[in-house]
């Protein structure tokens, strides 16, 4: 009967919902640097970029998903911003001074105006950050601003943020999508008249575009900000962001040249995209790793031998080949090899070895059963591969697919024993970590910034990132994925690939791969 495939449709529509904050922010930066259609193409130069998001989550004032980050970065700016290649560039502030390790003194640009022509001053910055900090506003960015103890307006163009305790990645955090969007104190987003779900053409930022229309569930339309301070942007007359959550429709509309840029295509579509005439593309390993986290304080994984058995039963290469069609990379340690924290000297890891896994199972008392909580495909596919291997050694693993929120809630509420297969951890749960994000330090170093609830893991992480000599770093790195009776962190599975494609008519589009070998310089001045 007609309509019998509802379930499949629903499942398909949700496959791309990833919270890739960093990727989202940098993709937004990439779009800003994208040029226009050829002059002879159409009278009005329209750049059309699909938003891969749920209409329910889309909120340019928030940063809950990649689509919202991209949509918001068209309108708003932060104190500093990222370039498409992941370096810090001026935003509202042109420079930062560090009088001491707790204080960040932001020097604001002299003549920055919002789209109405109102000058943005230090008081506006203060109001913007205080709005995010205010619990009543329910800002999803609130937690990231809790470290700011004091905000001092020094003069019209100077503001100091004083932290409670030293936190190296703070500057990067403020430049990332998690940082406060800076707007004039009398605009809606800051004044607290509405909550954060209130984007409309009334919302005015200092970004390159202003929202012309938000056709709910359909598309966002932007026009250039006439007062934008950066002379290079924007180079289009109109920017349209249709929401195309269905992957097949997105592919059809890109193939028919209705949309200009294809972000995060499905793995199965990539060969076809690569063969298209007039399409440029880049593929790289991204900054996101799939990993396995154990619930170590509950059975069955309160026994380290069972943890080790699962580690040895994980066939990373098969996940790379089957789930990602080769567009991923086996991960053996916490940092990717493109980062300074990767250590090539660390060669030992839990190799795929079912015999060893079986021995650990036997030592721990024999067969056991547990649940694997996973987000939808592709993570669920990885979980199924693990499930198959575990079955061979007499361990029953039940793959439970959950929404991100539901999974975290259940984990936090300690309702579910087992392990989780995730791409990014999130806040406030009882896993051994708390926040885990990718960062690029001002000097161009690449790192992870992390805040751990678990003292033990926090200490290991600190040792790892701050290790003064190579041996200490290797030692710390080895502890990071060590699964023993004493330690209970997580172990690494694969780094996911990132692919982007765009039509040649789009000038100067710069795909963003942070900290990757394929990172490239482009011709866009900044």
């Amino acid at each position, binding site marked *: *009967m*007609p*309509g*019998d*495939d*509802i379930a*499949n*449709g*629903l499942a398909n*529509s*949700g496959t791309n919902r990833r919270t890739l904050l960093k990727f989202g922010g940098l993709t937004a930066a990439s779009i800003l640097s994208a040029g226009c259609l050829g002059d002879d193409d159409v009278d009005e130069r329209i750049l059309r970029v699909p938003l891969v998001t*749920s*209409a*329910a*989550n889309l909120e340019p004032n928030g940063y809950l998903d990649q689509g919202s980050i991209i949509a918001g970065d068209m309108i708003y700016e932060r104190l500093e911003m990222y370039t498409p290649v992941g370096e810090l560039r001026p935003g509202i502030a042109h420079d930062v001074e560090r009088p001491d390790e707790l204080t960040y003194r932001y020097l604001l640009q002299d003549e920055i105006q919002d789209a109405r022509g109102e000058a943005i001053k230090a008081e506006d910055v203060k109001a913007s950050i205080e709005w995010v900090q205010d619990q009543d506003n329910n800002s*999803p960015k609130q*937690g990231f601003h809790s470290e700011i103890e004091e905000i001092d307006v020094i003069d019209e163009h100077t503001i100091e943020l004083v932290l409670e305790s030293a936190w190296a990645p703070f500057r990067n955090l403020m430049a990332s999508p998690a940082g406060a969007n800076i707007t004039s104190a009398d605009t809606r987003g800051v004044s607290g008249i*509405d*909550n954060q*779900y209130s984007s409309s053409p009334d919302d005015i930022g200092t970004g390159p575009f202003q929202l012309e229309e938000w*056709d*709910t*569930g*359909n*598309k966002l339309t932007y026009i250039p900000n006439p007062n934008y301070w950066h002379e290079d942007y924007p180079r289009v007359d109109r920017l349209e962001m*249709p*929401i*195309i*959550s*269905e992957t*097949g*429709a997105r592919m*059809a*509309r890109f*193939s*028919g*040249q*209705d949309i200009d840029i294809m972000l995060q295509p499905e793995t199965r579509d990539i060969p076809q995209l690569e063969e298209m005439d007039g399409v440029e593309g880049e593929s790289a390993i991204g900054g996101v790793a799939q990993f396995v986290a154990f619930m170590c304080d509950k059975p069955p994984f309160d026994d380290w031998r069972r943890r080790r058995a699962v580690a040895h039963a994980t066939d990373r290469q098969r996940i790379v080949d089957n789930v990602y069609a080769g567009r991923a990379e086996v991960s053996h340690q916490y940092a990717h090899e493109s980062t300074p924290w990767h250590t090539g000297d660390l060669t030992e890891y839990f190799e795929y070895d079912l015999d060893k896994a079986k021995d650990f199972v036997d030592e721990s008392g024999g067969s056991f059963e547990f649940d694997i909580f996973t987000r939808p495909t592709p993570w669920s596919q990885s979980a199924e591969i693990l499930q198959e291997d575990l079955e061979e050694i007499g361990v029953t693993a039940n793959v439970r697919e959950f*929404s991100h*929120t*539901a999974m*975290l*809630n259940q984990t*936090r509420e300690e309702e579910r024993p087992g392990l989780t297969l995730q791409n990014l951890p*999130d*806040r*406030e*749960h009882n896993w051994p970590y708390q926040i885990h994000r990718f960062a690029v330090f001002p000097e161009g170093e690449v790192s992870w910034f992390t805040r751990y609830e678990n003292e033990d893991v926090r200490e290991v992480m600190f040792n790892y990132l701050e290790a003064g000599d190579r041996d200490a770093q290797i030692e710390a790195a080895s502890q990071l994925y060590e699964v023993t009776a004493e330690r209970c962190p997580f172990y690494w599975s694969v780094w996911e690939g990132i692919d982007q494609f765009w039509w040649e008519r789009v000038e100067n589009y710069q795909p963003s791969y942070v900290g990757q070998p394929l990172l490239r310089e482009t011709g866009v001045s900044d």
Partner: protein
Amino acid sequence: MNYRYVLERVLWTIPVLIVATFFTFFLMFLAPGGPVAAVFGVAGSPEEIERLRAQYGLDRPIPVQYVDWMTDILQGDMGTTLVIRTGTPVSEILATSLPITIELAFLAMLISVSIGLPLGLISALYQDTWKDHASRIGAVTGVSMPTFWLGLLSLMLVGVFLEQQWALRGYVSLSEGLQPHLLSLMLPAISLSVPYIALIARMTRSSMIDSMKSEFVVNGRAMGITERELIFRDVFRNGFIPVFTVIGMSFGLLLRGTVLIEIVFGIPGIGFMITEAAFSRDFPLIQGIMLVIVLIFVTTNLATDLLYQVIDPRITYEDE
């Protein structure tokens, strides 16, 4: 018009509506998680969650919540959304999305009837000829095709291979012009209508064939009435009643089909919205949309029943 028949039919819709809405309301509470988790995500403390539960009255018994909800509905208050555009009145979202879906379903219905009826008629008139076989093969194929797949196929065919840019542009609102608006609904409506064209064609064929075997047709021929007159005046009118039932039911089914089509074509109608609402567990919005869908189903069924009498005045209640 038999007024007792009309009155009884209208009165019957009330218990149907009550039962349907109660089950819709009740089933929401069987879903894992619940609305509070959807709003607070992982950041909500137990105190915050309790506060929100109390704020939305979710801490009261379900029957009490249902009665309150229905009371509010009858007063025109459908509540506000929890997740999608938080705090927006559900009626406001319905006001923008429902007309789009109705328009899409109506267009699809129009296409289904305009093609399905003649196709079925031709098939019946030329029974067991190549015309009939072709029509039947087409009908079986049409019924078998998933709407979702048809949508994608039509996008690729018209937009990519035939290079018709209008087909790829996605939904265009009426404010951007009537022509682009209708063009943007063309492919979705055709994709949505294909299974119903097939359904109506099949029903028309079998109904007409049955009707053509009736005694009045034999008598008519014996009386020298022309074949043309027999078919269009008598056979069609008699055979149309079951077809009319299918058409009436199809409108409700078409609304169901819009869920998938609206996702494929990115049309912000109620099908799209209910998917979003279901994913985000926006209970007030799900309930509001379900209520509207139930109302449309019940209303179209009622209208179909009432129109029977117009088509065939002999139809009455059994006990009359």
